[in-house]
C-alpha cells in the first residue's frame, strides 16, 4: 500500500477550490430557501443581493462609499501604527516607562471604541476626523500590546551579544530589538486591521444616525440608510460582503508582507 500523502484525493483540489466549496453550497441552500418565500418578503436572497450589487455599483454609490471607508480605515490604522509602535518600543524596552504608563493603558483598554464616539463628535463634529479618531483608538491597543510583548520578550542573549560588539544602546534597539519584535508587530497589525473595520462601520452607522444621511458617507452610513429609510436588507448584505471581501484581501496582503519581511521563519 502506498503511504505517499500527496496522492490522497482531498489534496488533489487546489486550496482556492477548497476555500469556496462550502460557501457555494451554503449560498445554494440559502437561495433554495428564499424561493419558498412570497415575492414581497423583505428577506434577503442571493439573486436579489447580486441584483442590488449590480445596481449599486452602476450608480457609483457603492464604490464611493467603499473608498470612503477604506480610506478612513487605512488612515486610522496608520495613526495607530505610528503611535502603537513608538510607544510600544518605549514601553517594551524601558521598565520605568512601562511601569508608569501601564495603569493608564490598561484602564483605557476595556473602554469600547464606540464609547468615545460622543467625545469625538463633540470635538470634531460628525465628519471624517471623528471617524478617524474611533478607528485609530480601536486599532491602537492591539498594536501597542503586541509591540510591547514582542519587544520585552526579545532573547536577552542577543542583546548581550550586541553589547559585546560595542553597539550603542540606541543602535541595539534599531538593529536587534525591533527586528526581533516584527513577528509580534505583524500579528498586532492583523488584529488591529480587523478591529479597525469593526470600528469604522460602527462609527459610520452612528454618525449616520445623527446626521440623518448627511455628509459623512462610508459603507456604514450606507447600511444605516438601507436600514432606516429604505428597509433594503439586500443592500445591507451587499455592504457586509464588500467589507468582508476587502478585509480578507487586506489580511492576505499582510501575509504577503509577512513572508517578505520574515524569510527567516519557516
Amino acid at each position, binding site marked *: 500500500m502506498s503511504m505517499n500523502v500527496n496522492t490522497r484525493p482531498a489534496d488533489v483540489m487546489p486550496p482556492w477550490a477548497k476555500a469556496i466549496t462550502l460557501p457555494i453550497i451554503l449560498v445554494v441552500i440559502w437561495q433554495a430557501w428564499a424561493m419558498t418565500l412570497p415575492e414581497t418578503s423583505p428577506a434577503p436572497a442571493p439573486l436579489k443581493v447580486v441584483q442590488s450589487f449590480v445596481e449599486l455599483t452602476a450608480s457609483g454609490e457603492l464604490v464611493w462609499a467603499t473608498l470612503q471607508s477604506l480610506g478612513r480605515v487605512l488612515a486610522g490604522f496608520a495613526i495607530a501604527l505610528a503611535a502603537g509602535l513608538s510607544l510600544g518600543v518605549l514601553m517594551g524596552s524601558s521598565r520605568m516607562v512601562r511601569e508608569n504608563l501601564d495603569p493608564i493603558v490598561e484602564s483605557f483598554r476595556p473602554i469600547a471604541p464606540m464609547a468615545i464616539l460622543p467625545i469625538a463628535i463633540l470635538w470634531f463634529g460628525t465628519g471624517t476626523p471623528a471617524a478617524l479618531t474611533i478607528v485609530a483608538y480601536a486599532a491602537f491597543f492591539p498594536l501597542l500590546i503586541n509591540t510591547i510583548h514582542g519587544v520585552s520578550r526579545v532573547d536577552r*542573549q*542577543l542583546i548581550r551579544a550586541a*553589547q*559585546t*560588539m*560595542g*553597539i550603542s544602546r540606541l543602535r541595539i534597539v534599531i538593529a536587534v530589538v525591533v527586528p526581533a519584535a516584527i513577528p509580534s508587530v505583524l500579528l498586532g497589525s492583523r488584529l488591529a486591521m480587523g478591529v479597525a473595520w469593526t470600528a469604522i462601520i460602527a462609527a459610520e452607522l452612528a454618525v449616520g444616525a445623527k446626521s440623518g444621511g448627511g455628509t459623512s458617507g462610508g459603507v456604514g452610513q450606507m447600511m444605516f440608510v438601507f436600514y432606516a429609510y429604505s428597509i433594503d436588507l439586500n443592500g445591507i448584505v451587499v455592504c457586509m460582503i464588500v467589507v468582508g471581501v476587502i478585509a480578507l484581501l487586506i489580511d492576505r496582503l499582510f501575509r504577503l508582507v509577512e513572508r517578505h519581511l520574515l524569510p*527567516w521563519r519557516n
Partner: protein
Amino acid sequence: MSVQMIQPKPAPKLRLKGISKEFIAPRTGQRTLAVADFNLDVQPGEFICIVGPSGCGKSTVLNMIAGLEKSTSGSIEMDGKAISAPGAERGVMFQDYALFPWKSVRDNVGFGLRHGTAGAGMAKAEREDRINHFVQLVGLKGAESKYPHQLSGGMRQRVALARLLANGPDVLLMDEPLGALDAQTRLVLQVELLRIWGETGNKDDRKTVIFITHGIDEAVFLADRVVVMSSHPGRVSAVLDVDIPRPRTEEVRLDPRFAELSEEIWSLIRDEAYRAIA
C-alpha cells in the same frame, strides 16, 4: 650605576582578584554561590584554557570578564582598569552561539562590523572582504545566504566563530567554541585557531584568549596554561603550565609530555566527574 637585572614582569592583560558570584533567584530568593575566590592573572597574548565539570562556573567567569555579569565581590581589571561594562575589545563567543535568527550567515558574521565599533570607518568593500575571508576560513562558503535555522549545530557554531574573529577583538572570550563540531573539523579548526592567534608570528602580536572547553586534549593542544576548576562553589583547583614548544603541529599529540599533562588534568577532575554521575 646598577644595571637592572630583573626583567619586570609585564603588566597583566587581565587581572581577576578574589572574584565571587552569587546568584539570587528573583522570586524564591534562593542563593547559588556559582564562583568563589577566583584568582587569575592573564598575560598579554596568553592562551588560557579553562576546564572543569559541568556547572562549575566557567561560563559565569567568562561573562564577568565580558562585563555582562557583575561580580558579587572582588575586582576584574583589563590593562589596569576596572571592567564595568561590555566592550568591543573583549569579544565573546557564546556557548549557545547567540546568532541573530533574522540575519543570514553573511549578515551575522558582518553584524559587528556594520553596527559596532569594529567596523567604524571601514569602507564597504573592505568590510565585504573581511566577511568573505572569515566565512571561507570556517568553511561556510556556499552557505552565506542561509538563515541560522537552516544550519546544523556545527555550522551555527562556525558562524559564531567567524563573527567573533571578524570583529577582531583584543581579548577573545570563547565558551566551548568547538564543542558542536565533528572530531575532524575540530582538529582542523584547532590548528587554524592557533594560526589566527599568531602562534608562528611575533609574540607581541598575539591576542589574549580565554577558551573554555570540555576536551582535555584540546586544552593541552591549545593552551599556554590550563586552569582547572572544581565546583560547588566554582574555584581554581590548579593552574598547569603547558611546556610544549610552539608552533604545535599534529605531531604534538604523540609527544609523551602531551599524554602526561592530559593525564594530570584528568586526575584532577576525575573524582568530581565520577561523583557527579554517582
